[in-house]
């Protein structure tokens, strides 16, 4: 492919002085630019302190086009599931039908835009809708041609029939005109009567043309024979029937006979007295000059091309198309200086240069929707590989990644993009990873949605990061329960420890736990961090105590200390919790357990006394601490006595 340099488009930024330095910052869907001065110069002070948000794609913000994106996404996903190993004979109809589905989505969207353009009162908006309609129209036109030429790949004979359908579909205004004529009081006298007839003939709609002509014939009884002759010529024109038994050669012979007959009629001046009929006769002969006289009615060079093929080369082969296309383009556009982008794209298609079509469309269209989907479909049809091994799936993936990345900047469309990335084998995964972690986690619901997508794809780092972000945010807002459950999801032990600590601090301060539901149902998640285990177990102790299952509670409490699950800083609280148990009438802690408790207390007080000199605690606090210790010692001693007595009694 030749490298042609084209000037990149310039976007003007208001309120930034011409030639002034600009700074910028990339955002997810836009780029921020601002005036600045990079050189350290004395005369810095500048007037402008605006920041401008520059966006690339405005299309994805159109609610109507959003439907296009949504619906084509379904088709895309469906296409990806077509089995690779099916024989191409059964696959081809599937591909054609998928192609038609895409086109019908474009059409539906176009209709809606058209309605919107009509109903809006805002001229600006109407223009914008109008622009979008014209883009979609061109898109569909190109797509349809690609479908005929590349996907359906009709052979000689059928090829022309498909092209005729293509032109008829995109030159539909003749039906509108015909209706207008027929609904008028005297259709035969209508100023557009002959335009309609000729248009029908140009499109090969000979049946319709004949019906129109009978109206004229009835009005001119004198010319009855002439009309009859034309009617017979029109009715006799052979059309190839791909489903029939006739071979292409047979058809060709038949067609030549007919052509000769028409030619004879022209030569013997059968229609000399009626220039309209004479014109039609010349059209039937495919006379180039006559066809070019009908330029207004043909309106496009590709209509001219198809009409010319119809009446000169009905058995045209795909490989011959480019020759006729090129010459029709040149003949038709002689008045205009040069072809437009659309012309070049269609011409490239007629030349079967798929890459040129895709390349030109990428430049000419303002979003990646069209090229991405078309290329994907062509790639599935194995058309890109056969064309050039070096490109192929590379190109497909490149375009899909571009399109999906564009979707990702949208607050809801990003979910569609995920499936596109899934079907890009080389970079899809990395792109998804990079993009999905940037999706703003505005609410817990959205976070869960993003999380689910990441979990389904085993994107563990993203899962961890999202949970961590949510945990941090919840913690900052003092929602400890939410913070804890997010950090459990993130399997973030350090953070779970930190939050557990906060829970315990809160308990020490208020004497109650918040988020009981969560803590009571930790299950195996408790094992994530020691502190979390302690939190869970400590809460379990409270529950047992509340249910008056004292001996179990006591056993658990003790084990928290002896198994070193409880942090040393918390032992005093635990021992204090043991106090009421020690002072129950019945013995709860056995003698052995009481010894262990005493040992714990001893260990605690000895460590307290070693750190005491260093700390500068107020006297009062130390007093309280001292009183607590003494109370505990007393209770422990009493309990020990009771336990020994009790245990001795039972033994005997």
């Amino acid at each position: 492919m030749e490298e042609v340099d084209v000037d990149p488009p310039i976007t003007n930024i208001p309120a930034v002085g011409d030639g002034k330095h600009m700074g910028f910052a990339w955002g997810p869907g836009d780029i921020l630019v601002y005036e600045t001065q990079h050189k350290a110069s004395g005369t810095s002070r500048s007037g402008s302190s605006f920041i401008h948000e520059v966006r690339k794609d405005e299309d994805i913000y159109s609610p109507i086009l959003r439907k296009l994106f949504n619906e084509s996404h379904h088709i895309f996903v469906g296409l990806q599931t077509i089995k690779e190993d099916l024989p191409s004979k059964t696959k081809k109809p599937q591909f054609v039908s998928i192609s038609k589905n895409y086109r019908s989505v474009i059409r539906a969207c176009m209709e809606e835009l058209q309605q919107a353009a009509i109903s809006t009162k805002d001229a600006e908006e109407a223009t914008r809708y109008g622009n979008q309609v014209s883009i979609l129209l061109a898109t569909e036109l190109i797509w349809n041609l690609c479908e005929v030429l590349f996907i359906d790949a009709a052979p000689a004979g059928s090829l022309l029939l498909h092209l005729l359908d293509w032109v008829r579909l995109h030159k539909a205004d003749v039906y509108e005109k015909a209706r207008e004529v027929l609904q008028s009081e005297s259709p035969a006298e209508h100023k557009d009567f002959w335009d309609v007839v000729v248009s029908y003939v140009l499109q090969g709609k000979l049946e319709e043309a004949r019906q129109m002509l009978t109206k004229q014939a009835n009005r001119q009884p004198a010319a009855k024979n002439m009309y009859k002759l034309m009617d017979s010529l029109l009715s006799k024109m052979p059309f190839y029937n791909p489903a029939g038994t006739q071979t292409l050669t047979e058809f060709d012979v038949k067609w030549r006979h007919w052509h000769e007959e028409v030619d004879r009629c022209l030569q013997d001046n059968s229609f000399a007295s009626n220039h309209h009929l004479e014109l039609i006769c010349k059209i039937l002969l495919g006379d180039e000059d006559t066809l070019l006289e009908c330029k207004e009615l043909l309106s496009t060079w590709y209509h001219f091309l198809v009409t010319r093929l119809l009446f000169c080369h009905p058995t045209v082969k795909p490989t011959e198309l480019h020759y006729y296309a090129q010459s029709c383009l040149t003949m038709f556009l002689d008045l205009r200086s040069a072809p437009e982008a659309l012309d070049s794209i269609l011409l490239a298609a007629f030349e079967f240069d798929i890459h040129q079509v895709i390349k030109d469309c990428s430049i000419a269209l303002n979003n990646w929707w069209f090229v991405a989907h078309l290329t994907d479909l062509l790639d599935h049809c194995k058309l890109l590989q056969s064309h050039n091994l070096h490109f192929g799936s590379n190109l497909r993936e490149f375009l899909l990644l571009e399109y999906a990345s564009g979707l990702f900047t949208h607050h809801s469309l990003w979910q569609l993009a995920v499936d596109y990335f899934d079907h890009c084998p080389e970079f899809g995964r990395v792109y998804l990873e990079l993009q999905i972690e940037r999706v703003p986690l505005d609410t817990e619901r959205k976070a869960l949605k993003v999380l689910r997508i990441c979990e389904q794809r085993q994107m563990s780092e993203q899962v961890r990061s999202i949970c961590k972000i949510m945990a941090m945010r919840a913690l900052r807002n003092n929602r400890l329960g939410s913070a804890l459950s997010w950090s459990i999801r993130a399997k973030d032990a350090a953070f779970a420890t930190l939050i557990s600590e906060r829970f315990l601090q809160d308990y020490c301060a208020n004497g109650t736990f918040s988020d009981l539901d969560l803590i009571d149902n930790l299950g195996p998640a408790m094992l994530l961090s020691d502190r979390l285990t302690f939190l869970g177990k400590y809460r379990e102790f409270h529950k047992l105590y509340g249910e008056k299952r004292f001996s179990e509670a006591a056993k658990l409490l003790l084990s928290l200390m002896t198994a070193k699950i409880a942090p040393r800083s918390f032992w005093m609280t635990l021992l204090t919790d043991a106090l009421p148990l020690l002072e129950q009438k019945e013995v709860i802690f056995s003698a052995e357990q009481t010894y262990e408790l005493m040992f714990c207390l001893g260990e605690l007080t000895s460590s307290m006394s070693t750190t005491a000199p260093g700390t500068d605690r107020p006297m009062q606090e130390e007093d309280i601490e001292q009183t607590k210790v003494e109370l505990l010692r007393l209770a422990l001693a009493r309990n020990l006595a009771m336990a020994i007595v009790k245990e001795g009694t039972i033994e005997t």
Partner: protein
Amino acid sequence: MFVARSIAADHKDLIHDVSYDFHGRRMATCSSDQSVKVWDKSENGEWHCTASWKTHSGSVWRVTWAHPEFGQVLASCSFDRTAAVWEEIVGESNDKQRGLSHWIKRTTLVDSRTSVTDVKFAPKHMGLMLTTCSADGVVRIYEAPDVMNLSQWSLQHEISCKLSCSCISWNPSSSRAHPPMFAVGSDDSNVACGGKVQIYEYNENTRKYGKAETLMTVTDAVHDIAFAPNLGRSFHVLAIATKDVRIFKLVPRKESSSSGPTKFEVQIVAQFDNHNSQVWRVSWNITSTLLASSGDDGCVRLWKANYMYNWKCTGILKGDGSPLTGLSGQPTAMSTVVGSSVQTSQNALNGMSAGRYFFPPLDPPRAGTRYGHLLPPSSLIEHCDVESVQPQQQALPHRLSSRALLTLPEAEAQ
């Protein structure tokens, strides 16, 4: 491309840096007026300033966000020879209602004896680490060992680069195959001093950063530097703003010994002198499909690689000195958009239409006209509805523009 919105930043002096947060919902701006402002994006896309405070006693060069895993944390660096770390605290509900937030200074990093020219957080997988570089040629790496206590930062590494440093960039790769690595650029303009971009890599054994490479071909002053997201590749891509824009590929050499730093094969991928003179900033978009650069020509240029990794300029943003017609937050915001779209069509006349080339528009359908009913509209190109009320200028520029575009252009996707 179009200007969707203009925001009056209301800084009393030059803006030096604007930085998006990780999710693109907040931005921070800093200025010579010694302040930093934080902006929040509302549901409808408008930006609101939620905090503005004096941060330094000199021009603030750069402001940057920590990853949200670490909370809402900003770092700034200044001419006043310090860098600072700021944390947003969840304020009184009163403030929230008024749309204000509180930022408090967690630490001031005062180790530099000269202007701190750049500040960057290290990739999040390394923990909460902050890097500064300064005019005295020292790169400093700080770490907050306890992410819940941002007032404690310890200086972990001090790396002398011998040349006045202007910019720093971390390699974002979190692959185990890639040890932590950063690039530092120098704006020393003395060509004789040799390469102005140095690559440093962390060595597990010595627990120190060692120089892995100096880009010897870059001898002019370097103003900015940016590693591209790694995309799971074995090599790294580095963009450099010097007297031109350069894109390098750093391919780790297989034979490099396990003990020493990785040796790289340095390949230049692209080099653009379109800015005509000094280039000041380079930066990648999220997936590194686009590189933006700004330079002395007053333009921001966007560079894009096609699927064969050929780089091309695909867009230019340029100040035109025209007055601003509407401001964000005002009901007139729409007119900003209108203003710029008018410019677009003027440009289209020169064959340089903004964004992509549009097919000629159809006449806008009106209720009651034939076209109004017709679905789809009858003609693609020849729309000769004589009674059209559409002003001439609408159709004309497009026709002209399409002609100007004829010589068929290099596709982005080529």
